[in-house]
Structures are given as structure tokens and as C-alpha cells.
């Protein structure tokens, strides 16, 4: 899970983003137990306090939850993850079309290009 | 904790002194062997060299015991190593006591090594008799027992050396309070402190003399015609004074150390 950080943005915010991708892509599945804060911190090579803060943020977004003694788990509600995935996909798609628009390509052309690349 | 500190101080000293001890005894042995060989011109020359080497090593042993005590004191309290020394969970008094005891032990060991070397090189019935006779003439002249004479001489030599080394310690402590030329100041303060200590001892003997006419005679007469009684009293009084001065000086050292250090 070696990742590089942008020092300009708070580390915990970047960790939240990385974790979201992991949840969406199914690295951690619905209802699955998450590694401990310490293990995460060691893997990401970040300060455990920062990792704690990132997980707290995810928890406030209801994407993960804490079982009192057992540790942290991914939410059981698939819908939440699906929703997150949807939001991400839309953001990515929007930025694609915006980029194409900037170089003067309309909707139809843009889709064509998508298909071409995907072949 | 003093015993743990002492363990490392003694290890350091033995690492640095061993070579002189070994060489002193080695040249004492060669001297002895060469003396016992059939004499020829070449053997004669070699044995002269051996004698020279032995005495050089004896002098080295003596000087190094003193110098190494100072160097160890300065290095571990004021040089790079002090970064460890002062961050160990020990008191400044313990640090000082360890250095002081190390100095006592090593001067004693060096003294024994020197005696052993001389004994190996020169012991023979004739020499032994010559020495004992020589001592006897002194002791009968002074009307004291040989044992008393030898013990007092050794004690006073020891105390004098301990005092000198400790004056060096205090000199190092004072010198390192200065902001520059710490080494120069250390030597300067060391010498001054030593002279002051000697002056105080002399002054105290003089004050004692005010109450004891036999001792007072020493200050009045120019001749070396020591009164028999005076020698005994003087020996005891001055060793007591030495002990007092050494004690006061070590209190001073600890007091100064406890004020805190400033390592470069």
C-alpha cells in the first residue's frame, strides 16, 4: 500500500481519499474487519495519530464503524458504498467531458473517443 | 550506580594502561635475564638498553596514570562522550566519585607494578640488605620504627599524588566554565589550585606549630636538623591535613559540577 503524499494537503484528508478508493474498489469489502490503526499506519508509513484521524473521518461519513472491543469494520450497508462509487464515477466522467470540451470536442465525439480507447 | 560507572572507568583505564604495565614488567624481566648472562661487550650494551627501557616504562606508567586520569575526566565530562555521561540517570556526585575512586585504584595498581618491576630486575640478597640497612640508618637516626617510616612515607606520597590529581580535576572543572581556551585555563587553574592547596597545608602546619614547639622549631631553624619527635608528629599531622584538604577539594568539585555544565 505504498503511496505518495502531497505535502500541500493535510495528510489525513489524503488518507481518507485513498481509503475511499479501497472501499469502492473492494480491497476492503462490506462488513469486513479492518486492520488496526497501527497496522494501517505502518503500511501507509504515516503517524498513527493521523491514521486515527482519517478513520474517524470515515466513521463520521458512516463508511466504517467501530465495534466496541473488536475494532473497526467496513459498513454493512452496500448502498453507502454504491453511492460513493456513483459519486466518484460522476466526478471522473465530468472531468473527462470538461477536458474534451476545452479542446473543442462535443459530447458525441467525446463518446467516440471513449469507445476507441476502450477497444 | 557508582559501581556501574566505576566498572566502565576501570575498563577504560586498564585498556590504556595495560601496555605500560606489560612493558615495565617485560623490560624488568629482560634486565634480570641479561644481568644473569655471561657478560660480554654486546650483552652489556643490550642490558644497558634494557635498563633504560625499563625505567622509561616505569616513568611512563607513573605519568600516564596521572595524565590518563585527567584525560578520562575531561573526555567523559566535557568532550563528545559527555553527551552520554550527562544523560545517564546518575547524579553528578556519583559521576565524580567514580572518577575519584578510579584514580585511587589505578595509582595503587601502578605503584604495585613499579615495585614488582624493580623487584624483578634488582632483587638479590645483597641489594635487599643494602636497602634495609640504608632505611635502618635513617630510622635509627630518627628514632622511629622501620614499619612506621615506610608506612608514613608511602601514605604521604599517595596523599600528595591524590591531592595533585584532584587539583587537576578541579582545574578541569573550572577551566571548562570558561568560554574559550578551556584547556589552557584548565592547566592554569589546576596549577593555581595546587599551589593554594600546598600553601594552605603549610599554613595549617604553621598554625599547629603555634601549639607545638617541636614542630615550630622547623620554621625557625634553617638547618635540616629535624627533631626526632617533630618528624613523627609532622608526618601524622601533615597526612591528616592532606586528607582534610582532599576531602574539602572533592566537596568543591562536586559543588561546582552540581551547578551544571555547559558542553560545547
Amino acid at each position, binding site marked *: 500500500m505504498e503511496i505518495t*503524499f*502531497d*505535502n*500541500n*494537503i*493535510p*495528510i*489525513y*484528508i489524503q488518507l481518507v481519499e485513498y481509503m475511499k478508493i479501497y472501499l469502492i474498489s473492494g480491497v476492503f469489502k462490506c462488513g469486513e474487519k479492518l486492520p488496526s490503526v497501527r497496522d494501517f*499506519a*505502518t503500511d501507509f*508509513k*504515516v*503517524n*498513527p*495519530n*493521523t491514521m486515527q*484521524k482519517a478513520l474517524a473521518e470515515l466513521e463520521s461519513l458512516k463508511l466504517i464503524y467501530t465495534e466496541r472491543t473488536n475494532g473497526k469494520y467496513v459498513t454493512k450497508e452496500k448502498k453507502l458504498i454504491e453511492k460513493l462509487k456513483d459519486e466518484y464515477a460522476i466526478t471522473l466522467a465530468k472531468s473527462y467531458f470538461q477536458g474534451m470540451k476545452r479542446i473543442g470536442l462535443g459530447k458525441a465525439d467525446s463518446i467516440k473517443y471513449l469507445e476507441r480507447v476502450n477497444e | *550506580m557508582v559501581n*556501574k560507572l566505576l*566498572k*566502565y572507568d576501570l575498563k*577504560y583505564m586498564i*585498556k590504556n594502561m595495560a601496555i605500560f604495565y606489560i612493558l615495565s614488567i617485560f623490560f624488568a624481566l629482560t634486565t634480570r635475564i641479561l644481568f644473569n648472562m655471561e657478560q660480554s661487550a654486546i650483552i652489556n650494551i643490550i642490558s644497558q638498553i634494557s635498563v633504560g627501557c625499563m625505567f622509561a616504562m616505569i616513568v611512563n606508567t607513573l605519568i600516564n596514570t596521572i595524565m590518563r586520569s585527567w584525560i578520562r575526566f575531561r573526555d*567523559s565530562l566535557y568532550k*563528545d*562522550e*559527555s*553527551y*552520554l555521561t*550527562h*544523560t*545517564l*540517570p*546518575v*547524579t553528578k556526585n556519583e559521576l565524580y566519585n567514580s572518577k575519584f575512586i578510579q584514580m585511587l585504584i589505578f595509582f595503587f595498581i601502578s605503584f604495585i607494578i613499579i615495585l614488582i618491576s624493580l623487584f624483578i630486575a634488582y632483587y638479590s640478597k645483597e641489594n635487599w640488605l643494602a636497602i634495609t640497612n640504608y632505611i635502618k640508618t635513617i630510622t635509627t637516626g630518627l628514632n622511629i620504627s622501620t614499619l612506621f617510616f615506610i608506612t608514613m612515607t608511602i601514605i604521604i606520597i599517595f596523599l600528595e599524588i591524590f591531592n595533585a590529581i584532584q587539583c587537576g580535576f578541579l582545574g578541569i572543572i573550572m577551566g571548562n566554565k570558561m*568560554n574559550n581556551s578551556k584547556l589552557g585555563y584548565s592547566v592554569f587553574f589546576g596549577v593555581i589550585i595546587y599551589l593554594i592547596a600546598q600553601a594552605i597545608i603549610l599554613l595549617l602546619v604553621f598554625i599547629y606549630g603555634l601549639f607545638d614547639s617541636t614542630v615550630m622549631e622547623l620554621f625557625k631553624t634553617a638547618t635540616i636538623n629535624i627533631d626526632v619527635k617533630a618528624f613523627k608528629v609532622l608526618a601524622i599531622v601533615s597526612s591528616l591535613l592532606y586528607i582534610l584538604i582532599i576531602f574539602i577539594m572533592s566537596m568543591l568539585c562536586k559543588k561546582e559540577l552540581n*551547578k*551544571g*555544565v*555547559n*558542553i560545547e
Partner: protein
Amino acid sequence: MSNMKLLEIKSLNKSFDNKKVLKDINLNISSGKIIGLLGKNGAGKTTLIKLINDLLTPTSGEILINGKKIGVETKKVVSYLPERTYLNKQMKVFEVIKLFKDFYEDFDDKKAKKLLKELDLDIEQHLTKMSKGMQEKVQLALVMSRKADLYILDEPLSGVDPATRDYILDTILSNFNEKASIIISTHLISDIERILDEVIFIDKGKVVLQSSADKLRNKEKASIDEIFRRMFKW
């Protein structure tokens, strides 16, 4: 106990020859944090660290660790890595390990041996035969093998190769626990800022800023390194 300050510095001043090197330093450091003590060379970082470690005597002011004045009790809980080599070079590495075990109750010799092995260092070797870099690694392994309340690392990253730098950061992180705090002084901010909870900026003998690292990034929308450069026009 929990709200007792780990390190408390009150109006601390230090002068050499009437030259003020530290001016009215006030700092509070609690447990469970990695703190960057950041400043240019000569800003006063090392002076401050040496004062905390009893290697310098304050001109005025007070330093308390766990509420106690600097002394035997505080030295038991502070693990300090100086910016120079400070071990007696006549010793072998394993002898130094023994020395640490003799004096520090919280020293874990097995861990030290493990770290030294990971760093490819031979414990049978004489320190004289080691390069300065190797000696520094030995020191780091020793210092990190204590279970102290406060670790103070003075410029642990200067002059090391990138691989070692990563190893050092990993060692610091994997050793870190909630009960302890780590103060890392450095002028190489970008290398280290991702692991910092808190930053202290020190300049011309004064503490100019103490803040949470992420809060500062959020506020200034820039990296700590950049904020520092802007502030001191470096």
C-alpha cells in the same frame, strides 16, 4: 495523570558571553505526539535540546519533564540522540549495548540487536573501525531501543542516504506509542513532515509558532516546508 504535561518549558533563557541564544522560550508538549522542531541552522534548536538534556545550564527559566526538574528521574525517561557521535570509540558495539542495559532500565537489548542486524551492523565490531554514518546508525538503534516517555532526536536525517532515511522514519513510526512523544529537530522539513503531528518553528532563538501540522496546512493551503520557507524567506 493523563493531563499532566510531558514537557513543560517556562520562560527559558540562555546566553553565552552575554549573547542571547534563546529568548523567553515557553513550550508545552503532551504525550502521544510526533513533534517537529523546525528551524534554520543556528536558530537555537540544538541549544534548546541540550538544555532539556542537562548538557547546558539555563541562564534563567525552568524545564520540567513529567512535572520534575531535570535530574536522575527525568533522565530515566528521556532517550536522546545527539547530532554527533558520542560513544567511546574504544568500545565494541556489544559493549555499548551492555552499557545501555546497565544504566537504562527501559532498554531492550534484544530489540537493539534486531535493529542493528536490520541495519547490517556487526555487534562484534570496534566503533573505531566504523564510519561516522555507521556509528550514527548504532546510536539511533540504541536510542530507539529504549521504552522512554520522551525521545529527542537531533537532526537524525542529515547526511544519510535515502534508503537509510526511510529506514529511520520507519523505525521512528513503528516505535511510536501513545504514551510517548518524539521530538525531531531538523532543517530538512519536506523529508519528515508527513509523520508530524505538531510543528514548532524556531528562529533567532525564539519560538515563533507551535501548531498542529494538518491545521497549519489547511490554513495556509501549503506544505509545512513551503510555509516555513515563506515565513523565513529561505
